[in-house]
């Protein structure tokens, strides 16, 4: 029912509980990787496969929250579902603030667990789609010539061709040609679509664009 590429990373120091949860998740069709501590997980290369992390909050060494905060700083961090033996309000609040998908207390209900894992995986999938789109836009953007990039930012800024021609001190006809080429390279059908793409550009790209604009 789930595709095999998805991996659930289960981090809990309690071996017995960890194995039980892993068995349940495997029964549900997930591939499960188990870690006895947050450190063990961090030592691994950042997982490439889609999936999620299930993290116990009560563990020796760096606590689950600390690990999560570390993970959140990584670019491609996996969504995290928290587990806790005792879900006190401050901990829960802090966990949710760092972007946890869900916060479950032990013993966990199967449906809630699976729902949380599914939600996490969906979030991961969404993120991955967005990342892909973002990378696509960026690669299109980088394929633009300097003049085309200037025209991109000018259009995003809402300028009309005449205005652009005056700004760039070129003929309006020339602007139209560059604009057609740029729209084709960016595969944008409308100015609105172009504007949305602009938001996906990284600040660096934006800056370079700004620089080009300036």
């Amino acid at each position, binding site marked *: 029912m789930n595709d095999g590429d998805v991996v659930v990373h289960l981090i809990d120091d*309690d071996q017995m509980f960890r194995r*039980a949860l892993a068995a349940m998740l495997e*029964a549900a069709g997930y591939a499960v990787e188990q870690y006895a501590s947050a450190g063990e997980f961090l030592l691994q290369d950042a997982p490439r496969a889609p999936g999620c992390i299930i993290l116990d909050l009560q563990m020796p060494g760096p606590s689950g929250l600390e690990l999560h905060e570390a993970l959140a700083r990584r670019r491609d961090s996996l969504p995290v579902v928290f587990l806790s033996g*005792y879900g006190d309000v401050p901990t829960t609040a802090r966990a949710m603030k760092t972007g946890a998908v869900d916060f479950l207390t*032990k013993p966990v*209900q199967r449906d809630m667990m699976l729902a949380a894992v599914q939600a996490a995986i969906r979030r991961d999938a969404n993120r991955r789609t967005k990342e892909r789109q973002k990378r696509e836009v960026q690669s299109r953007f980088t394929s633009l010539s300097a003049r085309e990039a200037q025209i991109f930012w000018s259009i995003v800024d809402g300028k009309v061709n005449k205005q652009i021609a005056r700004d760039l001190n070129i003929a309006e006809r020339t602007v139209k040609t560059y604009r057609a080429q740029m729209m084709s390279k960016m595969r944008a059908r409308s100015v609105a679509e172009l504007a949305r793409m602009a938001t996906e550009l990284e600040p660096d790209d934006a800056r370079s664009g700004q620089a080009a604009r300036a």
Partner: protein
Amino acid sequence: VARRLQRCIAIAVIGAACSFDAAADTDVSPRNELPWRVLILQGYDPWLASAVQFEQTLRPTLYANVPRFVDVYTETLDSGRFRSSDLEATFLALLRQKYSHDRPDLIIAGAPFALDFALRHRAELWPDAPIVFFGVSPRAWAGRPRPANVTGQLLDYDPSKTLALALRLSPHAASITLIAGVTEADKLRMQATLAAAAKLAPRLEIARLDNLPFGEMARRVATLPRDSVVLFLGLYRDARGDTYVPVHALEQLSGVSSAPVYGWASGQLGHGIVGGALTDFEEEGRAVGQLAADVLTGRVSASAPIRDPLPPGCAVDARQLERWDLSERNLPTGCTIAFRIPTLWQTYRWEAVTAVVLIVLQAGLIAGMLFQRRQRRRATLEVQRMRSELSHASRLATVGELTAAISHEINQPLGAVQSNADAAEMFLDANPPRLDRVREVIAEIRAANARSAEVVRRLRTLLKKNQLTFQTLDVNEVVDTVLQLVATEAHRRGVTLRADLQDGPLRIEGDPIQLQQVVLNLLMNAMDAMAEVPAVRRHARIRTSANRDSVSIHVSDRGQGVAPGDMSRLFQSFFTTKAQGLGIGLSVARTIVTAHGGRIRVENNSDGGATFEVVIPKGRTHGEVVSEHASNTSASEIAK
């Protein structure tokens, strides 16, 4: 004789002088007069028991009742052993020579034979002296003419009372055996006895052992049937003509007799007879002595009526009663029991009383001490119970603090069970069902269940109310158990616990649960001490080590340490520096350690925090003294 004469004259002269003096001096002294002379004329051997008894009381009675000095002479005819009629002339001549000058003032003559002699020769020997007789039976007296100036005390021989006593003591007696010699007196008693027996017990068989040599008598007496009774009537001479001292003969015969022997004279008592209605010759002597004194002083006329016989007295020998197994209950009332074997009580009465008093005093003392001991023991038990209550309360409090950690401990395996059950269900629902995984998962469930049960068990053991029970235990095991209990709590509080346990079992004698409590209290205390310090510094360390004859446990923390002013009060009850503390943890720890004969102390570390050291001896040195000390400690603590 000449010398005696001279002395008599001398006495007479002095007496005359004295009487002359007395004429001038009215103060009359007995010595101033001539002494009265009294002659006792015995018919038999004067050393016969009855004769000895008789004279022993007669003489003092006489002396005491006469105001003048009395000279008493005794002569004997000994007619039992000698043929006195042959000797009479010679004896008479002797008496004549002895008493012709110093004539007796009174004759006391015993037994008919002597009385007859005295009367016969009265006119020649002592014409003026009155005669007092004794030892004459009423029957012997009855046939005589009453001579003048003669009075006396009759002596009755009445065998019927003795016979009655014998039959009373031996109610099933079938025969009566009579022992007697061949003298006149013996024969008279035999006749009287036969008559009495015929009247008293006509159906009983009568065996006579009188006309026999002594040896034959002894032989026959030794083979008598047990159900017979024997009467010893007297034995001065046997059929062979041998003479005997009757009591000696009696002793020999009763010694070999196979049946109880009875007698009739008080002198026989103690010489083998069971008893009888006994003529008391001491009484006879007293009565005759009194009569003689009265006649001598003129208080009683020498022609006064003859005195009736004195009644015989019932007397028995306790030793013989016992020998023949005769019951004292069958004795008639008023019967004297002589020679009663003194009981231990009679012999050792004072020793026994003293011993009993001592024993009673001692027993009282012991009882008092036992009572005191029991009181003390009860008090000790009460203190122990209170201490146990307190330590139980302390454990409850500690476990209360651990609640979150413990619920986590139990929750964890419960969560595993839950997930495993879910997994099992899903593996079963898969197509095809993954039974191998189901089996694995069930094994996991079982393990998780065991784990939660173990947590509950540990908890229950710790919370159980228990008395101090000593057993051999491993200190490392105690520490391990507690570490498992507090591990979760330590993690919850962000405290890192480090255990350095010396290898090998560290065995001591102790109560495992109480020692768990000590370790638990110290670890909780260490964690409490670090509540305010930064997380990186929250390290607690527990260390065990064996010394030569003790085991040490060190618990260190890196908290604030103990303020110098608090050091001395740290182990007191209800002293606490914590906001929520009860202040009993450390005091209970100390009480327990003390009860184990050990000690506990605290020291601040040089690099911050404090170290608690518990030292417990390996051997079981806790004893009365130690536990008492512990009781006192906890008692005073409770009192505070």
